[in-house]
């Protein structure tokens, strides 16, 4: 397995190398990340990348098909706009993890911070711990699974994304409401938890989603505009 020292190689050369590998399942280890930004961004092939240490902002952004693991903490904007593939963080993640992402699976084994899954468009995010305020803000599609607690204004102005929370919710955002856990949701959540390797029972979660009252202009609300 090739090992690349980020401090020796430099960020641009590292990402150019990772972006050019086409061999399926090729595996790379990155050492000495030292909190650098934009590590392993823009990957497009089915390769495996392990970052041995803490990553800075925008790690694994725009990922397609690759599996990226951060063994440590990840900074702001983790897996931002991910399209497919898997990103896993063994520690905590800073704010806006999985923002605007269209697909793939993001697993944060520790806590995520505020705005986790903001404007998510189809990604599945599984957080082993808790998430901060404004998580799932304007989330359009995909699943946000929170095994711990959720901060203020969860799912504010949410569209059709589905949020599962095992712990407590500090408060729900505008137009977000609790919904029944039907069999299809238990099945979907069980699958996501299994894929993530996180040990939790789907039956212990509550489901939240859009009350769909913000979708259209309401003449009754004209005075509020």
């Amino acid at each position, binding site marked *: 397995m090739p090992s690349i020292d980020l401090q020796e190689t430099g960020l641009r050369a590292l990402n150019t190398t990772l972006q050019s590998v086409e061999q399926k399942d090729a595996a790379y280890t990155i050492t000495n990340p030292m909190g650098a930004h934009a590590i392993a961004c823009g990957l497009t092939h089915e390769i495996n990348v392990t970052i041995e240490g*803490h990553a800075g902002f925008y790690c694994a952004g725009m990922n397609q098909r690759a599996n990226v693991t951060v063994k*440590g903490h990840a900074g702001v904007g983790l897996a931002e706009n991910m399209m497919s593939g898997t990103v896993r963080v063994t520690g905590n993640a800073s704010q806006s993890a999985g923002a605007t992402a269209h697909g793939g699976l993001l697993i944060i084994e520790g806590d995520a911070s505020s705005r986790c899954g903001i404007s998510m468009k189809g990604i599945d995010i599984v957080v082993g711990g808790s998430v*901060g305020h404004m998580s799932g803000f304007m989330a359009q599609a995909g699943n946000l699974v929170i095994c711990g607690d959720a901060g203020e204004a969860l799912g504010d102005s949410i569209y059709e994304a589905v949020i599962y929370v095992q712990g407590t919710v500090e408060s729900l955002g505008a137009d977000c409401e609790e919904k029944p856990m039907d069999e299809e949701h238990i099945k979907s959540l069980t699958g996501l938890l299994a894929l993530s390797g996180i040990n939790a029972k789907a039956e212990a979660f509550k489901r939240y989603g859009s009350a769909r009252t913000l979708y259209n202009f309401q003449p009754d609300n004209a005075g509020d505009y």
Partner: protein
Amino acid sequence: MCGIVGLYLKNEQLRPQLGSLFQPMLEEMKSRGPDSAGVAIYRDAVAPHQIKYSLAHDQADYDWQLLGSELDNHCQCESSIRQIDSHAILVCDAPEQTVRNWLKQHRPGVRLVGSGSSLEIFKEVGLPEAVYSRFELSTAGGTHMIGHTRMATESAVTTAGSHPFATGADLCLVHNGSLSNHNRLREQLEKAGLEFQTENDSEVAAAYMTLKIREGMTLRQTLKQALIDLDGFYTFCVGTTNGFAVLRDPIACKHAVLAETDDWVAMATEYRAIATLPGSETANIWEPKPQTIYAWGELE
């Protein structure tokens, strides 16, 4: 932008290396704030009957020794003064108000940038490595430091507008963000008798905290009240006698990360500033929550 960093050494054996451990932290934040840089270092506590003052003057060859001897003569006190580049550290046994009044009356060009028992503040326009080297900080020992690299948004790039800002005895503040009600607040604080050296919004936050502490609030109460009275974006790091505190506004969009090991606790705008500390690979790392006071050391 702006970068802020803080480091408290729990392990006493590391304390002689404080300056060298802190240097890469501050320098890593250069890209966030290349306009000016400043640090507060807590070291060499003076005797209980003495007070330590950090002074600054724009004139490179300013006669600090003359200032010291004239202060002694006028105020019948004993003082020592040591010049470090554009700053000087004065240690004096006169009452603090006597020294402040004398400086204001007889040395109006001298800026008093900090006071207390162990606090020393150094700040200048320029890149962090240049500022660090000017003040001989790389070999400095001590218990803790906080620092700031500034990208000016609200006011001019001047030494006086650089951080940290003093907020009371052994207390000082660095700020990443911008306050939106600082003009109104400055007017109110001026009516209460506080004086300002700059148009800087962070100086207003520091003056606000100075007033609250002067009125008898603890630092913890002050920070709680600041959440109500200060409007805008902020991540604050407040240096105290025996540690530091971190506070973020309710929206918390100004970055911050905390890291802790058995040997030290550190805060920074970005983790890369912490990455060079020994043991950072296995440190507990997390993002501080909004409107939550994180503190190491006493706040009461």
